[in-house]
Structures are given as structure tokens and as C-alpha cells.
């Protein structure tokens, strides 16, 4: 027995060694193992909550009960809800206008910052401030700025003798929509500007020199060098910018809570209102899930619409 046991042990050890060697030689297997921690994190913190949210949207779950499967009842109910459609149109309006404004102003700022300005590093750091300040804090600042009684804008305009009464920034639908969009743009510009600035700095100066020697105007340099070279960055930046804007919550929650008369309710704020304070988890989840197609469409547009590889390579699409 002892001899047999001794004879068996090296064989087993050899097999394990061979397995270990095969394992370390297999790039696929090793890659899989290395990916596992990241995959686990994504599954636990991303895929599971997303899956649960989607599932809740198909149930009549409320606070305290897991609910029953009700198929698309929540979605049918939302389809007949004018407040839901108002929130959809508000969200689209908010996203389109704010994203476009952030892009143009951000690009303009990036081009300015790309010039040789004095105290370049300091100015760039200052530009980032609105992005660094926590959203809730900047939202509270805007809450004061937009206050009917205490607005600094009203105060200044009154002081200059330009107006007599108070400006009702958040008191009617149109003003409130414009006000929240302005606040969002103020907060989002630095992200776009700094990201595009990083992109601008990767464009080789020799291209501009060559173009200048060829007699290209500044518009032509921008149109045929800057823009094509910047397009991949624009695609990524605008994808994120659109996503952030579409899913905005804090600004609205602090400034208006969706009022007046739901004119500033976004899908995210309405979903929260229905699911948590309102207690209707299923309906809130369905509402939140209904944002997904819009988000996917926005990503598709940004990604495929802007990342035109042939154009970047200097040929026509």
C-alpha cells in the first residue's frame, strides 16, 4: 500500500502541473479568469439592478410587497397618462436643447482655451469649477438665483432701472423650462470643454502649418482639420453628455420638484416620485425602463452618427 501510494503521488502532482501549465498557456482561459472580478462587479452592481428594474416594471409591486406579474399593464397605463407624456416631451426638449447648447458653447470655450492665453492652467482649472461643485450645491445656488423674491438677477436689473417687477423664473412653464436648461448648461459646459480641449491638443501642429502654407483660411483649417480630427472625441463626449442630461434628476429635484404643474418633470424625477414617495414601485420602474429606448437611440445617434470613420480618414462617406 505504501509503495502504491508513493507511486501514485508523483503522477497526481504531474497531472496538476500539466494542468497548470496548460492553464497558464491558454490566453483565453487566463483572460476569462482575469475578467471575472470585473464581470462580478458589473453583474452585481449593474446587470442585476437593471434586470430587477426591468422585472419590476412588469409587476404591480408596491412598497412592502414584491407584486404580481402583470405583463405590460404598467406600460399601457403610462401610455394613457398625460403627465407621463408631458415628462417625455420635457425630457426630450431638455436633452436636445441643453446638449446642443453645451456642445456649441463647450467647443467654443475649448477653442479659446486652446489658444495661448495668460495663466492658461489657472483659467482651465477655473473653467472646471461648475463641474466639480456637487450638483446639489450648484442647484441650491440656482434656487436662490431664480427665487422670485430674492433673485440677484431681479435685484440687479431693478437696480439698473431696467425692470419694475420681479422675474418669475420658475413660476410659469416656459420660464421654468428655460431656467432649468440654463442651469444644466452652466453645469455641463466644463465637461464638454475640457474633454474637447484634450482632443484639440492631440491634433498635430504640422497639419495646421501645412494647411496655412497651402493658403487655407482659419475656417477651412477648422472645417477640414480640427473638426474631422476632433470627431471621435466629440462622439464620446456627446454620448456621455446626452446620457447625463437625459437622466438628470438633482437639478430638477432641488429647483422645482417637477413643478409648476409638472412642466419641468423629467422622466427620471417622475419615476422617482411615482416609485418612492408614491409607493408604486412597478409603475415607477416601468417609467424608468421606458427611458432605455430613448437612451439607446441617443447613444446610437451619437456613436454611429458622429463616428464616421471614412470621413476621419480623409475620404468621403
Amino acid at each position, binding site marked *: 500500500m505504501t509503495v502504491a501510494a508513493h507511486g501514485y503521488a508523483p503522477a497526481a502532482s504531474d497531472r496538476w502541473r500539466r494542468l497548470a501549465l496548460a492553464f497558464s498557456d491558454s490566453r483565453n482561459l487566463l483572460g476569462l479568469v482575469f475578467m471575472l472580478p470585473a464581470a462580478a462587479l458589473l453583474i452585481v452592481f449593474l446587470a442585476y439592478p437593471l434586470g430587477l428594474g426591468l422585472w419590476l416594471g412588469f409587476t404591480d409591486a408596491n412598497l*412592502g410587497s414584491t407584486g404580481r406579474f402583470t405583463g405590460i399593464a404598467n406600460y399601457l397605463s403610462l401610455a394613457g397618462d398625460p403627465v407621463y407624456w408631458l415628462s417625455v416631451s420635457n425630457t426630450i426638449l431638455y436633452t436636445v436643447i441643453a446638449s446642443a447648447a453645451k456642445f456649441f458653447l463647450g467647443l467654443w470655450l475649448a477653442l479659446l482655451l486652446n489658444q495661448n492665453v495668460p495663466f492658461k492652467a489657472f483659467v482651465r482649472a477655473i473653467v472646471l469649477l461648475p463641474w466639480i461643485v456637487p450638483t446639489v450645491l450648484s442647484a441650491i445656488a440656482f434656487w436662490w438665483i431664480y427665487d422670485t423674491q430674492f433673485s440677484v438677477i431681479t435685484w440687479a436689473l431693478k437696480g439698473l432701472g431696467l425692470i419694475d*417687477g420681479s422675474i418669475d423664473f420658475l413660476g410659469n412653464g416656459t420660464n*421654468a423650462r428655460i431656467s432649468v436648461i440654463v442651469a444644466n448648461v452652466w453645469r455641463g459646459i466644463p465637461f464638454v470643454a475640457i474633454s474637447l480641449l484634450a482632443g484639440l491638443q492631440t491634433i498635430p501642429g504640422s497639419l495646421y502649418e501645412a494647411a496655412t502654407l497651402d493658403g487655407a483660411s482659419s475656417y477651412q483649417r477648422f472645417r477640414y482639420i480640427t473638426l474631422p480630427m476632433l470627431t471621435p472625441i466629440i462622439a464620446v463626449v456627446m454620448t456621455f453628455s446626452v446620457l447625463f442630461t437625459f437622466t438628470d434628476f438633482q437639478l430638477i429635484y432641488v429647483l422645482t420638484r417637477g413643478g*409648476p404643474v409638472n412642466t419641468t418633470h423629467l422622466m427620471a424625477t417622475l419615476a422617482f416620485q411615482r416609485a418612492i*414617495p*408614491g*409607493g*408604486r414601485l412597478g409603475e415607477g420602474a416601468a417609467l424608468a425602463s421606458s427611458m432605455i429606448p430613448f437612451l439607446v437611440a441617443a447613444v446610437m445617434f451619437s456613436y454611429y452618427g458622429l463616428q464616421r470613420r471614412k470621413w476621419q480618414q480623409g475620404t468621403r462617406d
Partner: protein
Amino acid sequence: MTNRRDVIKLGAGAGLVLGAGGLIKPRRAAAQSLNLKPEPGAKLRVLRWKRFVQGDEVNWLATTKKYADANNIEIRVDSENWEDVRPKAAVAAQVGSGPDIIIGTNDDPQKFPSKLVDVSDVAEYLGAKYGGWYDVCKRYGQRDGKWIALPMGAAGACLVHRKSHIQKAGFEEIPKDTANFLKLCQALHKNGTPAGFALGHATGDGNTWCHWALWSHGGMVVNPKNEVVLDSPETVAALEYVKQLYATFVPGTLSWLDPSNNKAFLSGECSLTNNGISVYYAAKTSDAPAMQEMAKDIYHANFPVGPVGRPTEFNLMFQAFVFQYTKFPNAAKDYLRFMWEREQFVPWMEASIGYVSHPLKAYEDAPVWTADPKATPYRDSVKVMLDNGYSGTLGEASAAVISDFVVVDMFASVCAGSASPKEAAKAAAEKAKRIYKA
């Protein structure tokens, strides 16, 4: 959001405290009659709404510590903005984990009754000892005949006003009826000292006065059978009344959130609004001489009675409830019993200068209601109020009507001119039907 956390731990000399504390002994005896013996080594976590007046929190924490020390247990009290307590309670109910006790608002416990500990023994004990609970407390705290929560009282909403401005407008005091109240607001507007009531998504102040306006004219969201009856001539009458009232308001009320009227009132921009006693408290305790001067001119009055001929106030109710996942149900219930006993509750009301109106009838004689006559109008806040589900039952649907601002938005849409009273009543009724049908 700001968290305030206090950890109260048992002192080593708990036994000595027990022996020395003359007040503790009778209360322990009372608890024994309920057969509530806190579990040895119990650790309780309490989540409550963050104080509106400093005295409330100081007193609450000190009394909690007294109880924890006397019973050799640990109690941690977390405070959060009252609107943030509701989602926390919801999550606790959903996941089955979190604070042992939550002191929430309105019909929170009615949304997840099956998750809560039956506190009937404590409620019946307190009711029998202190003259009974006001009727509205039973509607809020009971479900299917058993108590699922202990009503703590309500943050009464009264008409906070500048007396000198009211007098200048030709009225000695706030009128007792809605018709003359409108005349007062018109006179205030004419004098440049207008009234202002929140019409934005102000969960507390907006819902409070808008429900009063609706109910005072006989309108209601649902009837006792939970059938939506909001689209009614009474609702239209209420909307027409508020439209006239709105014309007299300080600009900007359509965007007002809960803190807005406090700011406007204390800055002198508005002379009449609805609020708890906190505006007066802020002025009275301010170091600024101008504020102290203003405090002398601040008075309170109850809402006027409308065509229905009886008070129809709506106030923010606070309720304490214990989750079934707690490992220490007896400690939780006994702690609540202790805090609700007269020896603790009345001093707490005093420390809160009457911010919370009592739920038990015997506390009517609390000195806080007479020591400063300005607090007296808040005394009957619970006695005269209706619940937010009126006149149907409380539960998910009634909570959703409040959280979706169905009534506030109905009034706001008329005031903003985006809908006629009839259109607004119809649209709001449709919203309510969706909620009650779900």
C-alpha cells in the same frame, strides 16, 4: 441632505441611575402592566424627521438617553429631512432591514401595514390613560382594527400673519369665514402687504392649504367608498375661490417649495401665509433686532371655515412605527410608550414650543398652549384636521395622490391660467382615477 446622528450608549452605572431616578420607577411600573420588558442588551435604531425647532431635538435626545440609561439598552437616533424619511421607510419595508423604529409622516405606515409590529397594546394603554386619541389619529394609526403605528401628533399649519398689516387692511383679526378671508387678502394686496401660499410642488405647505381650500368648499378626492368624486361643482367652486385668492398673492407662489414662504414672510415680502410655528420661532430666537421686532407682530390663526360650515384643516401628521424585522420589539414598543407618557411628552411639546400638536386628548391642558398665547391656535390642530385620504380610506392610493400633487396641481393649473376650473377638476379627477384604479 444632511444627516444628524447621535449615538446614545448605556452608561456603566445604569443600575445606580435606576435606583436614584425618582421619575423612572413609576414609568417602569406602568410598562410592567403592559408586560413590555425590553429585551436584555437591546439595541434600537430610530430614524426620525429632522427638527424644525432646536428645542425638539435637544429634548428628544435627552429623554431618549434617559430611557436608554435606565433600561440598560442602546438607542441610536438618526434625523433626516422629513421628506427623506419617507423613501427610507419605503426601502426599509421593501428590503426588510433598516431602523427598528421610524417616525414618518401621514399615511406612510398604511402603505406597508403587513411589515409593521402590532402596537395596539401600547396605543390602547396610552389612549386609556390619557383621555383617548383624537379621531383622526385612529384613521391614521389603525388598520383593520389594530394599531400599526403610534400617532405622534401633527405639525399644525396655521395662518401666520403680521397683525399690524391685518389691522391696516381693516380687519381686527383673521376672518373666520372664507368669504371675508378673500376680502382680507384683497385688502392686503391693495396695501402692498400681500398674502402668499405655495402652489409649487411643496409637499407640506402646498398640500396643506390646497386640501383645506378643496374640503372647505365641500370637494373631496374620493367618497367613503374610495370612488373618485373630485370632478364636482364643489371642487369647481373651490377652484374659482382660489383663483380669486391667487390674484392677491405675492408674485412667484407658483414656484414656491416648502421653505419659500418662510423666507418670503421673514423678509417682509409677504404678510400672511400658512405654516407651522417655526416662522415665529425663527424670528423670536433671532439675534437680529429687526427679527425680534417682527416676532412681536407675528400672530397665528386657524384657517377660516368654508361653505361646509366646519373646520377642514389638513396638517402634516407624524407617526412612529416599528418594523417586524426588529429583534427587539418589546424594547421598541416600551421606548415609544415611555416617550408618549405625559412626563416626557408634555415637556417635549414645550421644548418644541408647540410645533407638534398632541394626539392624546389629555394633553390639551399642556402649558405650552397657554404660556405664550401665540401658540394657542396650534393646540387644536389634530382635533380639527382631516386625514389626507378623506373621505376614503388611507393607503397607497391616498399617499400617491399627495405625492403626485394631484390637488396642488389642480389649483396651480387654474391659477396659472392653463386650465379653467372645470377643465382642471376634470383633469385632476382623471389622474385620481388612474391612481385609485391601479
